[in-house]
Structure formats: C-alpha cells, structure tokens
C-alpha cells in the first residue's frame, strides 16, 4: 500500500535574520466597514500577497503565508501593522502553523521544503524534500504530540520531519495525487484528506502506512480536515458541497449541506468550543456550524471572490485569510458568534 520510506539526510539552509526580514510596503490600519458584524474586523495585507493560510503567532500576532510574494506575513491586530519575512528565492508558501517551539512552520511548494521562521530573530531555516520527491506541491502540516511535524504534498505524498534530528521520511499516497489537509486528533492520531483522491487517510505514526477511509459519497473532493475535542474528524467536501463528520470509534459518517444552489466547501476548522467553521466558495462566505443544534451562522466575505482557503484561530478569535482580496478577517467569538 505504500512505498518504503526514504530517509533524508537533510541539507539545511540557515539564512541570517538580517537578510530575510524586510519592512512591509505599507502598514494598514484596521478597516472599519459599516456592513460588517460588530464582532468582525478587517485588516489589509500588502497588495499581491494572496494570503493563503493563517495561524496564531506569539503575543497575539497573526501569521499568514504570502503565497505570491514568497513571504511569511506578521500582522499585529492591535495596530494593523504588517511585517514580512522573505522565505527565499522561488518561495511560494502554502501552509503555516505554530510549532511547539513557538516558531512558524511553513509548507513551501515553491521551495519544495519545510521552512521554519524563528519568531525572535526571523531566521529562516529550511528542510528540502528528498530529490526523488521533487515538485511535491507541499500543502499543509500539523505537529503530533511528540513534536514531529507531518505534512502533505498535493502531487501525491505525505511525510514527517523530526526537527530534533532533521530526519525526514516521505511516502506516496496509495491512490496518487491529491493529499491536501492534515490534522491531529486529541489522542495523537494523524489523518489527512485527498482532494483528487476523495478520501480520508489515517497514518500509522510508526510505520508511516496510510490506511484509506472512503467517505460515503464518491468523488466528493475532500479538501481539508480538522478534529474536534472528541476526536471526530470534520471534512470539507469541495465537490460534494458538504461538511462531513467521521467518527473513528464507530466508523460512522454524517454530513450537512449548507444552503445555496452550488456550495463548494473549502476550509474547515473546529474552535475550542467545538463550533465548526467552514468556508463556502459558492456563497462567498464563511459559516459556523453548531453540531449540537445543527444551526449555521453566516459571515459574508468583505468583497467579491474573497476565497478564504483556510481557517485557524485561538481562544476567542477566528482568523479568515481572504486570499482574493489581500485581507485578513478576524471574528471575535467571545463576543458571540
């Protein structure tokens, strides 16, 4: 079902911080728009950034990947100021998460590498994938409880990197192209989904073997996945236009369809209250879903084709990168959602 692991003796690029950091082109004040809900704020990021993914950084800062500018963006929501860290020639970052070391960890499709940005010094360090996995189209990453980062590549791979030893192992998805979102459950299991393959997969963290779990709807285009506090996996179905829940202990699937003629569910995230957040490109909106009441709450985008491709947050805040508009929307959930 999977190919033998490839042990990567990593070639590490350690760049001096002074060479990587650069000031933002502009510092945008928080936007005030009369048509936004009271618990929503908007922040501009440098034009052309196309912020793809977002993550909470230290001290209330917000990180985002500036995919078209090859940068890690650092937004201070207190002032609206943005600072950028250049990730290297050819960079096209996709995902960003905060690691247990407090650093930003980035899946960079342009560099074909896992990239770390030190939050104190802006030093950029990268771990390229082995040569046999060139053009992996790196997508998303997650840390497990042992401090190992697991990642996907849409060209058909998934892998792991232990930052302590720099050991990297990469495997091919049993069904080929498509691995996209990846998540860790509270009990420490790693799951990823495949967009082109339309499946969920559970990864054996010891052997690296991926066990395919087929959702009930064929060709649904599972794009992202997130775990709730009970270990249920929430899956955004792009083609299927539904939000689905898989319960590993029973194997049960349930799904819900947002309103609208042609929903296209892209991102999914579960906040610390077990409220599920999803974006619907068909409606150009973000939706929160309460599994207890099965009710949806709608957050319209701040403009046409906002294209929120990922969602992440911290207690009391949900971050929505509007990649099509070069803005980041922040929803306060402690003010009611």
């Amino acid at each position, binding site marked *: 079902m999977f190919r033998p692991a490839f042990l990567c*003796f*990593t070639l590490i690029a350690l760049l001096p911080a002074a060479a990587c950091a650069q000031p933002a082109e502009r510092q945008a004040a928080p936007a005030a728009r009369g048509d936004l809900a009271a618990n929503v704020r908007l922040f501009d990021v440098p034009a052309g950034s196309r912020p793809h993914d977002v993550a909470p950084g230290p001290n209330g800062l917000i990180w985002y990947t500036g995919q078209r500018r090859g940068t890690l963006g650092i937004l201070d929501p207190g002032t609206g100021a943005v600072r950028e860290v250049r990730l290297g020639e050819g960079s096209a970052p996709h995902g960003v998460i905060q690691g247990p070391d407090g650093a930003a960890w980035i899946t960079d499709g342009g560099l074909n590498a896992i990239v770390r940005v030190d939050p104190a010094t802006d030093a950029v360090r990268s771990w390229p994938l082995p040569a046999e996995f060139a*053009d992996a*189209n790196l997508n998303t990453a997650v840390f497990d409880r042992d401090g190992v980062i697991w990642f996907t590549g849409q060209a058909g791979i998934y892998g792991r990197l232990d930052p302590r030893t720099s050991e990297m192992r990469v495997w091919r998805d049993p069904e080929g192209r498509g691995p996209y979102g990846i998540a860790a459950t509270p009990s420490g299991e790693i799951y990823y989904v495949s*967009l*082109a393959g339309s499946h969920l997969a559970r990864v054996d963290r010891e052997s690296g073997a991926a066990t395919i779990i087929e959702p009930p709807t064929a*060709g649904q285009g599972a794009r992202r996945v997130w775990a709730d506090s009970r270990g249920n996996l929430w899956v955004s179905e792009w083609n299927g236009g539904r939000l689905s829940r898989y319960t590993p202990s029973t194997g049960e699937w349930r799904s819900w369809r947002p309103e609208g003629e042609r929903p*296209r569910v892209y991102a999914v995230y579960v906040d610390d209250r077990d409220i599920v957040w999803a974006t619907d490109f068909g409606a150009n909106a973000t939706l929160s879903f309460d599994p207890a009441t099965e009710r949806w709450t709608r957050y319209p985008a701040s403009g046409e084709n906002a294209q929120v491709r990922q969602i992440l947050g911290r207690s009391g805040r949900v971050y929505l990168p509007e990649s099509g508009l070069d803005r980041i929307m922040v929803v306060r959930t402690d003010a009611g959602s």
Partner: protein
Amino acid sequence: MKTLFAAASLAAVAATAGPSIAQRPDLRGQQIYRRACYSCHALEPGRNTPAGPTLHDIVGRPIAAQPGFNYSPALRRLARRHGRWTRALIDRFVAAPDSFAPGTEMTFLGMSDAQRGVLLDWLQARQRRR
C-alpha cells in the same frame, strides 16, 4: 556528517545530470506542469479528477465539455462566449483565473508570463507528438 554526505551526493548527481532543466524547455515545461497543474489535472484522455478535468488535447478542445466533469457555471458561460480553448484563451485564463472567468472553481492563484509560455509550448508539443 550526514549533511556532508548529502551535499557530496547531490554535487555528484548534478555533475552527471547533463543539461540543466533551465536549458531544456521540454523538461522545464514538464516541471511547471508538475508543480502547478499535476495535483488536479491528469494528461491522459478521459482521466478527470474531482479537482479538475484532464488536460489531454486541451489546445483547441471545446471549453467545459469533458464528459463526466461537473463544470462551474463560470466555465459554462465561458464556453458559450468562446467555444474552444485557444492558446491565447488558456494563457489569459491561467494568468488570473478569477479575473478571466469570475466564479471559476479552479482555485489557482495564477502563473507568471514566462511560466505560462513554457507550459503552453510543452502542452502543444505533446499534442503534436501524437
């Protein structure tokens, strides 16, 4: 020690690999396809994925007409307006999908002028070879 071994190995591979990708437009085109298109689009006839239709014979092909693929209303509108994919149309679409076909479900952020040229040369060369 491991890093030194890796560096030496990579240098040896590079020294024996012949012309670089930059010097081989065919390899460069394939690389761009692998990086930007492969994840969603196959090249084999009839092989759509849930994320995108095949690119087989794309230049000159009717727009939004691959059997079995569920095209967006935006692409169907484009088909009514233009009929077939010409090289120029593909170039404009891939440059900025959202601007050229607002509402498209191809969630791709676009590609530079130079990359599009190489990619289209490569796709057309593949069509001519068959």
